[in-house]
């Protein structure tokens, strides 16, 4: 996260490959399910044997004796509808919810986040020197109205994308944060409104940032978990 600060985001998970290297983020929506982005995975039937999620830690590389750290293997990947760029990851066992690990709510189907809502991104990705890259960083970004966003990006914004306004200070997600959450506090609930996807440039000061609009795929999410 560029332009952020160390913080707490108990639904943000670190996705690790077989070598134990963090390569993407995700969000815990059920005790045994994580949402992330398709871009992070080689295919919809990738063999994820040896891949894990790490939860409950603040440090990117906590010690093995960190009492809060939970390490859970990933057993399955399910790709979302075409153009959603979402994946759901099933965990080998449920995560234990505690003060460091929590679920994030899903929005109502097709819910549109009001413009101006201040939401939060979180991740262990690249900070470009703006913060400590060894801990979880969070940053606030305001939601931009779709019309304004479309104008700024010359009509290239899809309904399935959610925009946040660019900040002069240069705030945004970067490599290593992809798949992580855009969480918005609504009526005392933290709700997963967006998923971070790769962009060509991180934290632009002159263009909105785009996220996957989760509310368009909530029906699919529930269907996968039910099936």
């Amino acid at each position: 996260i560029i332009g952020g600060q160390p913080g707490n985001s108990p639904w943000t998970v670190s996705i690790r490959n077989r070598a134990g290297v963090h390569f993407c983020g995700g969000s815990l929506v059920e005790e045994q399910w994580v949402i992330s982005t398709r871009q992070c995975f080689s295919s919809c039937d990738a063999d994820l044997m040896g891949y894990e999620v790490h939860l409950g830690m603040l440090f990117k590389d906590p010690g093995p004796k960190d009492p809060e750290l939970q390490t859970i293997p990933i057993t399955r990947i399910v790709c979302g509808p075409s153009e959603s760029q979402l994946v759901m990851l099933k965990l080998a066992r449920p995560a234990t919810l505690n003060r460091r690990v929590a679920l994030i709510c899903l929005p109502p189907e097709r819910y549109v986040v009001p413009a101006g809502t201040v939401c939060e991104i979180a991740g262990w990705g690249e900070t470009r020197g703006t913060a400590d890259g060894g801990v979880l960083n969070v940053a606030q970004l305001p939601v931009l109205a779709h019309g304004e966003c479309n104008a700024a990006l010359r009509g290239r914004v899809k309904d399935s994308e959610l925009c946040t306004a660019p900040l002069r200070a240069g705030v945004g997600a970067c490599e290593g944060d992809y798949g992580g959450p855009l969480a918005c506090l609504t009526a005392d609930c933290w709700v997963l409104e967006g998923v971070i996807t790769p962009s060509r440039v991180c934290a632009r000061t002159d263009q909105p940032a785009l996220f996957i609009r989760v509310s368009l795929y909530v029906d699919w999410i529930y269907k996968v978990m039910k099936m």
Partner: protein
Amino acid sequence: HRSPLNDFQRLRATELLAEPADPPLPSPEQSSAEQCARRCATSLACRAFHHDWQSQLCQLLPWTQHSPHIQLQKNIHYDLYQKKVFLRDCIVADGSSYRGTRAMTEKGLRCQHWQSTTPHDHRFLPSPHNGLEENYCRNPDWDKRGPWCYTVDPNIRHQSCGIKKCEDAVCMTCNGEDYRGTVDHTESGTECQRWDLQHPHKHPYHPHKYPDKGLDDNYCRNPDSSERPWCYTVDPGREREYCRIRLCTEKRPRPLNVTTGCFRGKGEGYRGRVNVTVSGIPCQRWDAQVPHQHHFTPEKYPCKDLQENYCRNPDGSEAPWCFTARSTVRIAFCFHIHRCPDELGAQECYFGHGEHYHGLVSKTRKGITCQPWAAQTPHVPQISPFTHPEAHLEENYCRNPDNDSHGPWCYTMDPRTPFDYCAIKPCSGSAVPSVLENADAVAFKECGQRDERLQYKGR
């Protein structure tokens, strides 16, 4: 520090089926796989053993998969361990330990049975110790040329069998990532440690964690994209060492999935020209060692196209990557390169959500065949012709019985994929109302777990 299992080749979830033996086989005994291997290794009659990993029962066997009237069969309860000497079709050193079943000379002559003294009389008669079985090629006199036999041609007394050395039998291409031969010693002659053991060296390359790397037994492999195949050694003072394996002289195979504008899978075939990380840092040239020293040089990895400073994936990482030109950031993935589309082209189209689609498409967008709606395997359906009789759930055609907003779908014949959407797209002009047109205010009535936000307390 070698394990007795080093002499065996393991086949998981497999057993050897034989006709009832006379005399019958000894009863299984309780022991670990290593103890069983030790017993079998010291028994002349034993050539293999079954090990029941749940009950820790072990049964010694006098045959292998190459024995007459013996066949392999899947059995989840057993692992089958067979002595390597009876399975190898190559030789180690002079081949005096060769116990394979080659029975023809290098010039195509059939071998004479060792038990027979015609057409050629000889002194190499079979015994329980010398392995002179049937008419198989053997090397009872440590001939430098390797295993040989007497021939059935009265004019040619004996001839070499021309069996290759194991290090030459299977060659490797590129850096040997795909090498699956049977070399199990390093270039200094040290025996390799088994990949499924953690002694004498602990290591992260568990076979079950890397199922695509071929980490079988103690054979030389290259699971980490080193320059060439290697192994952990049985010498506690030497953790790992390269193996000597012949480089194939045939033309180098073209990598799969070569792309330039996008990448497929993990992007190992990506040959595009993106050379900047997503955070704007230029990539370091592959032929440079500054600011980051590394071993991924173009000369050592000739198949990986490590040109200039382009994003590449020479080591099977998640995506193309590069060393960066900034000293504080060693490596960055190039996730900003788009993935190539990997879905089937739409074969038909549907209106609305496709709830009235009654077409004949029966494949998912990934090309997997749909499961018949009335079937119970591989997936037990929650929606079927019985639960939804009005939904026209015929055969295995794509349908939308639950008005899924993402279109027609089906259960699939892939056991790992319960359901998926189909190779059908919305018909042009069939617009579902935009989510932005009906943005009603929503009152949140329920709440998830309240965040107990902690103040970050510093280090």
